[in-house]
């Protein structure tokens, strides 16, 4: 099966922005705002951090210490690029595979693990208090972004809502309703489609006959652009520009082309439905090595840098895991604690039943 071919750079009217080729060589000048060691090293570090965290989460799941988990392996550039492009004051509305963006914005690894362990407290982020939690029903976060963006507009704030969606999400009505509404009201919202070519077992060709996902913007009368989602420089730049546009009242759709190198979640076995050869080929394009090659070529990254980073990231991840494993469980009655602002008296008896351990 090779149903994703036409999703390569094919469409001349919908060019793909890219700075680094697969091997990490620059194809054009890097945008000057990003063209310094510190900026690029930070993006690199964040991708390594995301991948390391991700691998740890999968292994925690395999050993029974985490629930079902959705890995972002291979898609770190999309997520980190988005995180880096956003202002802290913007609001993120992620799907369920956007750990890189969440981490960049200050959600802690411990919180993410806590959430995927099946504990609501993991969504009570100490960091970005206004960011939305992970959205499980596909595309259902899109209309929330409309509301958040409208709130910014009503208050006259120069902020944007950034909503991440999968390629599968572009089949759902709420996606279209939302981009269309943003067009009507000139809302400060950016929708990034993380086109990782698969929705569980369905390749993009099963989702749409459109040659690109960016062109779906045409239906809404808003701008749509494509970016190489494995080139973090390009993502950071294109999403940054999209956010600026959005904050000026021009909503944007960005299609980021990447690839889901891992299983859909830890509950999935992708070998049932896709060829290993396809996956191996895609490993040649993955974003982490690509940026490292570039950094190394520019003499901005040494073996010592790499070792120090790995050490630091491992330490951070291990610390987070330790903290996660040490978290005290929620008492059962906590399931009533945030049902309403104030628990109605009529529910007190049910809560008591739980507290008595009779539940």
């Amino acid at each position, binding site marked *: 099966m090779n149903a994703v071919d036409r999703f390569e750079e094919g469409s001349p009217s919908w060019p793909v922005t890219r700075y680094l080729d697969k091997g990490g060589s620059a194809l054009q000048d890097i945008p000057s705002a990003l063209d310094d060691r510190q900026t690029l090293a930070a993006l690199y570090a964040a991708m390594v951090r995301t991948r390391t965290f991700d691998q740890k989460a999968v292994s925690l799941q395999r050993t029974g210490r985490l629930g079902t988990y959705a890995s972002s392996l291979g898609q770190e550039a999309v997520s980190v690029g988005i995180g880096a492009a956003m202002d802290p004051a913007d609001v993120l509305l992620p799907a369920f595979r956007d750990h890189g963006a969440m981490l960049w914005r200050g959600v802690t690894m411990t919180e993410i693990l806590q959430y995927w362990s099946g504990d609501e407290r993991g969504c009570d982020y100490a960091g970005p208090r206004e960011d*939305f939690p992970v959205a499980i029903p596909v595309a259902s976060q899109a209309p929330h972004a409309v*509301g958040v963006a409208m709130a910014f507009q009503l208050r006259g704030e120069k902020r944007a809502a950034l909503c991440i969606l999968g390629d599968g999400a572009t089949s759902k009505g709420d996606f279209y309703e939302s981009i269309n509404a943003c067009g009507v009201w000139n809302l400060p919202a950016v929708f990034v489609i993380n086109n990782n070519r698969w929705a569980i077992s369905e390749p993009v060709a099963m989702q749409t006959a459109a040659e690109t996902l960016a062109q779906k913007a045409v239906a809404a009368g808003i701008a749509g652009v494509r970016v190489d989602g494995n080139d973090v420089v390009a993502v950071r730049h294109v999403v940054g520009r999209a956010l600026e546009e959005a904050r000026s009242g021009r909503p944007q759709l960005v299609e980021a082309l990447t690839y889901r190198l891992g299983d859909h979640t830890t509950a999935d076995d992708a070998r049932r439905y896709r060829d290993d050869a396809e996956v191996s080929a895609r490993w040649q394009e993955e974003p982490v090595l690509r940026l490292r090659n570039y950094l190394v070529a520019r003499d901005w990254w040494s073996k010592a840098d790499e070792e120090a980073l790995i050490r630091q990231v491992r330490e951070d991840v291990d610390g987070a895991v330790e903290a996660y494993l040490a978290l005290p469980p929620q008492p059962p009655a906590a399931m009533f604690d945030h049902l309403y602002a104030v628990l109605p008296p009529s529910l007190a008896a049910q809560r008591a039943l739980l507290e008595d351990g009779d539940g």
Partner: protein
Amino acid sequence: MAEVTLVEAVAMALGRAMDEDPTVLVLGEDVGRDGGVFRATEGLLDRFGPARVRDTPLAEGLIAGMCVGLGAQGFRPVAEIQFMGFVYPALDQIVNHASRLRNRTRGRLSCPMVMRMPMGTGIKAPEHHSESVESMFAHIPGLRVVIPSTPSRAYGLLLAAIRDPDPVIFLEPTRLYRAVREEVADDGAAAELDCCYVMREGSDLTLVTWGAMTRETLAAADALAEEGIEAEVIDVATLKPLDEETILDSVGRTGRCVIVHEAALTAGFGGEIAARLAEKALLSLAAPVRRVAGFDTVMPLPRLEDAYLPGIDRIVAAGRETVRFQ
């Protein structure tokens, strides 16, 4: 003090709420210049402008989902769904998000939204304009489900709903929109949520109902009174969370209960109330509980609407049989 209809009371409450709280927004289809197809938002666009009174694209899922985003950002959106038959595309957002956002984030984000919609038969409108699926909402944890039965109750309950920090499904019986006028002071006084209202006292029989059926039920109580049967009439008003005490207390005194609703019988909210009686008032019950409800068939098109609707006769008959039961 003005004599107003129920729909005018709704408009009055909306205006009041927008006046006193700049975070209150009104949105929906045709709520702006048209003032809503029932005129529930009449005059609001001129008073508060298009930023706060917003005609939306024709998409109920979008409307509900936007409210979640606005609510999380501290606004208090009051959305109108044009008819209850068109609320289904919004259900995903209501059930999976609005009702859960506070819980999911352990209180970090919340969703102080109100979704208003006309419900029920009585205006001989085409298909899908006559739904009564309140029990679907009443099943969903995290929601409030409120149904006013008089103009003053509509005013007070709607203000309470808008001020409430959690999502409220506010169901307005179309049949009552212009049925009566009542003096309602625009004094900003909210009515109590989460409680039943006793509309009529009586010691022989308890009639439990809500929304539009309160009218037929009160009429039935009058008819029963002529037969010497004094019925207590309870307007449930807030279906969720349910104030069962008022109902249990009344049935504890009367020992007899008829529940009246327009929605289809099976898995209608009357079942929940009858169940509470079977659980908690069994020993008080001197007669089987009766439900007088819509039939378990599709609400017919207007020609047979009246035949579908539980009429006064059926309520009276059920009340009489319940009281006579030995």
